[in-house]
């Protein structure tokens, strides 16, 4: 649509560039601060960009807290919960879309109610339940309550409602088991949905903060977000550069994933709209 006059085109590009800069500014500020020396950090007149980048800040921050452990914990938590949410959501979504069975309506509304109950509302009783079975400060306490996603179930059901029933009918006539029909025919059909949901669920689990905060206090189990708060507590008032270096360490892996899976991230975030 090159019907736009040149001035309008320039204005659009200018406004987009300006807003992109405004949105990215805090992250640029983080990078600049992470590479400043202590003297530059506490000097209100120091230039915004560090004159002599202190790359050693990154290794100092990394060594000041068990970041390796934090990353490992975050990776385990995110991988397991995401895999669980996909498996449970796809199975149930498939069944709700493809089969007719007694009590289907009631069971579906029960799952749907999970969508309407914000996790924060039931946070206290869930923690009490976990305490009752001794799961506070354990991997299972962190992971099991997050293994199902009502949203995932709903999205996969939406997807399978659009797939033809005839494939299953043909396979049934050929004697395939229901499990095999699901695994070999329909699950692969859902790959685009699975990919979009995986990226968004993984990022959400990776960034989860409130739940790990109330279920764990042991540094051995901490995820990167909670680890950063511990790290902050250990710093003195002028170590903003190290705090920013720590934040940079936490942000970069997510940015890399989001960059490579850009399209899927956008798809996934748009999916979430039915929340």
């Amino acid at each position, binding site marked *: 649509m090159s019907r*736009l006059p040149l001035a309008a085109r320039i204005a*659009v590009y200018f*406004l*987009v560039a300006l*807003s*992109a800069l405004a*949105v*990215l500014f*805090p*992250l640029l*500020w*983080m990078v600049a601060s992470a590479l400043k020396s202590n003297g530059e950090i*506490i000097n209100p007149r120091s230039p915004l960009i560090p004159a002599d980048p202190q790359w050693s800040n990154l290794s100092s921050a990394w060594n000041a807290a068990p970041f390796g452990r934090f990353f490992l914990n975050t990776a385990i938590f995110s991988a397991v919960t995401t895999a669980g949410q996909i498996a*449970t959501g796809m*199975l*149930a979504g498939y*069944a*709700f*879309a493809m*089969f*007719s069975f007694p009590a*289907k309506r009631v069971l*579906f509304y*029960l*799952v*749907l109610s*999970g969508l*309407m109950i*914000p996790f*924060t*509302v*039931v*946070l*206290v*009783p869930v923690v*009490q339940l976990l305490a009752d079975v001794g799961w506070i400060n354990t991997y299972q306490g962190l992971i099991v309550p997050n293994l199902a996603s*009502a949203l995932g*179930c709903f999205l996969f059901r*939406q997807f399978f409602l659009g797939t033809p029933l005839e494939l*299953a009918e043909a396979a049934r006539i050929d004697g395939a088991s229901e499990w095999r029909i699901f695994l070999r025919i329909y699950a692969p059909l859902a790959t685009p949905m699975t990919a979009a949901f995986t990226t968004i669920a993984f990022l959400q689990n*990776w*960034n989860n*903060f*409130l739940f790990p*905060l*109330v279920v764990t206090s042991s540094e051995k189990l901490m995820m990167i*977000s909670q680890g*950063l*708060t511990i790290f902050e507590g250990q710093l003195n008032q002028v170590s903003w550069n190290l705090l*920013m270096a*720590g934040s940079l360490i936490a*942000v970069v892996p997510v*940015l890399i994933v*989001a960059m490579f899976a850009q399209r899927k991230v*956008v798809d996934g*975030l*748009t999916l*979430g*709209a*039915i929340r």
Partner: protein
Amino acid sequence: MTSWIQPRSSIAPDARPRRSRASGPRRAGRPGSGQYSGARLHGWRRLTPYPFVAPVLALTVLFSVFPLVLVLRRSLYAGNIFDTNLRFAGLANYRLVFATGGGHALIVTAVFTAGFVAVCMLAGMAIALLLDVRLPGLTAVRALFVIPLVVPPVATAFIWFTLFQPDTGFFNRVLVALDLPQATLSTPGTALIAVIGFGAWQFFGEVVLLYLAALKSLPRDVLEAASVDGAGAWARLRRIRLPLLRHQTALIAVIATLTGLQTFTQIYILTNGGPQGATQTALYYVYQEAFGLGASGSVGAADAMAVLLFAISLLVTIAQLVIVSRAQRAQAS
């Protein structure tokens, strides 16, 4: 993946588009028998659906529905977090909520959410409209606005915390350069504005994406006809695009509202609910009473506030369902 406003996203359990096969004799005899859509299995296979749905059902009941019943019941009982013999206390917990700053927390929640939604909607729509202009390169830029959405809120909260530092933070450097008084997080008003701005900065990319998807769904021919008839860009936006987008706008606002009500991490790191409770939202109050204050907190008050929070979210969700069904009816007719 823009099916979210299409009739397909109906929440009815029998939403499968009907095809010839299912209109067999068995189905015809049962009015309103939509739940029989999907394959009817025979013999042992009839049991197949149950193990398929069991994991999600069990986990949803165990970690959502049952805890909700617990929290509703417990909000009427006195006792501390590990107490087993609870005493019925009527509405004492709810009175306690309002005696311990809960009323203020609800007001803060309302102000925060209103500000958060307003900033997200205005900025999100403005940028979506800019990115919707068909010019080379703009699709690639879209990803930049998604970045705040995917990076860990704890890390970004620390960034915003340093931005607001007196003297050395960027905002105060600018204010000092302009000879204006400094804005710090120790001032209640500034702190509330800061968490609104920070929260909106982190989330508004979602609004951009949703509006972009909605804008793509608009009928091009109508817009082009208006353009041919001499309607300028502003007139097309005000008289055609915004009215056509009203259902989506309402839905996006609902999503932003639910997100605003659930905001925790940003406030926890940036202001810790302070100063003087200026940024203590309802959710933050729940956290404080149940976990943050240790023995001096009241789980009863946390439960009661959680119930209030649930009631508010439920109202918003019901509004969402009404909007969806209206949009579907509008689309069907």
